[in-house]
């Protein structure tokens, strides 16, 4: 082991700084994807309940596709397909250029679509858990649909949806590792680079696993805090 630890040094001789930078990219990607994915998921869940058959049908197709495709395939389709689409759009606008899609953006879109499809299921369950009378009471008080949603439904929704969304977050954190395949310098990619240079795959991949595990444990702690906060109004009823 004495031979291996110096490989993790920060600076030009070790891979510590590269791996730390990769870990930062991993966390940034997950954090950037989260708001986009769960917001889209809520919209999909609302669309699924819409009376408009076209809208609810489109939402169902969206869910089926992005929950059924392997995440890796979704990512490659977004990455290469996005490139083709942009090129086609540019050509239609009269430019001819070779475009390279940004790997971070492609990762964000692909993982965001997957997160949207999975969180839509969580949102749908939470929406169902809110009694119809809550909405009706809102309307009876003269609130508009949007006000009723924002002031009556949403605060209750978040509490019910939180455990499911927490699972979605943990899955997202792990899925970010796939983005290493389109050369985004995330934790997995940087570890690969370190392995290529040092020929110490076991050591470095175990380090990467431990960092991911650390992120999961840390997330677990934050989630527990959030749940305690979301449930603070329910404490007395239970005691």
């Amino acid at each position, binding site marked *: 082991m004495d031979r291996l630890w110096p490989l993790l040094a920060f600076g030009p001789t070790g891979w510590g700084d590269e791996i730390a930078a990769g870990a930062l990219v991993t966390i940034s990607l997950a954090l950037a994807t989260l708001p986009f994915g769960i917001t889209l998921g809520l919209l999909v869940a609302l669309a699924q309940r819409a009376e408009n058959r076209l809208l609810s049908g489109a939402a169902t197709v969206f869910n089926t596709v992005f929950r*059924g495709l*392997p995440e890796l395939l979704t990512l490659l389709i977004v990455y290469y397909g996005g490139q083709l689409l942009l090129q086609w759009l540019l050509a239609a606008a009269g430019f001819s250029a070779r475009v390279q899609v940004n790997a971070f953006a492609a990762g964000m879109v692909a993982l965001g679509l997957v997160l949207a499809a999975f969180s839509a299921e969580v949102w749908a369950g939470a929406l169902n858990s809110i009694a119809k009378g809550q909405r009706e009471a809102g309307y009876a008080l003269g609130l508009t649909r949007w006000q009723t949603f924002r002031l009556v439904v949403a605060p209750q929704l978040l509490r019910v949806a939180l455990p499911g969304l927490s699972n979605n977050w943990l899955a997202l954190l792990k899925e970010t*590792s796939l983005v*290493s395949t389109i050369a985004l310098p995330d934790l*997995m990619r940087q570890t690969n680079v370190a392995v290529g240079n040092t020929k110490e*795959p076991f050591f470095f991949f175990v380090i990467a696993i431990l960092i*991911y595990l650390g992120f999961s444990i840390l997330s677990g702690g934050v989630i527990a805090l959030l749940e305690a906060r979301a449930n603070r109004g329910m404490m007395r009823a239970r005691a």
Partner: protein
Amino acid sequence: MIRDAIGLVVDLNLLDRYGWRMLDGLWVTLKLVAITFVLGAVLGLAVALARLSRNRVVAGIAFAYVYLFRGTPLLAQLFVVYYGAGQFREPLEAAGLWWILRDAWNCALITFTLNTAAYQAEILRGGIQSLPKGQAEAAAALGLRPWQALFKVVLPQALIVGLRPLGNELILMIKASAVASLVTVYDLMGVTRLAFSRSYNFEVYLWAAVLYLALVETVRRVWTLGERRLTRHMRPA
């Protein structure tokens, strides 16, 4: 005639070159998932029982195992096994085990089994814990041995509770198995990536999407049918 009709939607040249190979890849994906899911069920049962053990050390080890495999990416686990094994070639050769880990297919098989076992263990544990204590007590009162009670009384009921989450886990495994393509296994994803790298024709990714969706939807529907059949005694007439 039919060929012309197909030609309207897909590139026939590409289909001739890669069509059969992609179906081969689909077959590899099916085999990989089927084998690992069954092996994972056996290991998962052992882990679930260890998790519920009164022995603190055994329960602790099982908890750590489940946490480790559920808390980290499958891709990273696969790389540890596949690339990590190469580093221990000499001791593995000495132990006569190198032939197993030399092969990417076996590495994927081992990693996926260990991974799905952790998820299935949690599902089984949840199922077992959802049963009233009286079930095990009644079995004991009838004179059943602990193993008989487990296999004849507890497990059948726990599996009914776990049917739906187990179906979800199977579908997650089908999707997750695509990462095997990153260690040179030619599953559906592997063949697709190969076809794309040679033809630069984006269409192959869309074919793969259709095949994966068809596979997942079929499995989901068959599983739901099985679930309905197995729980038919629990529905009011």
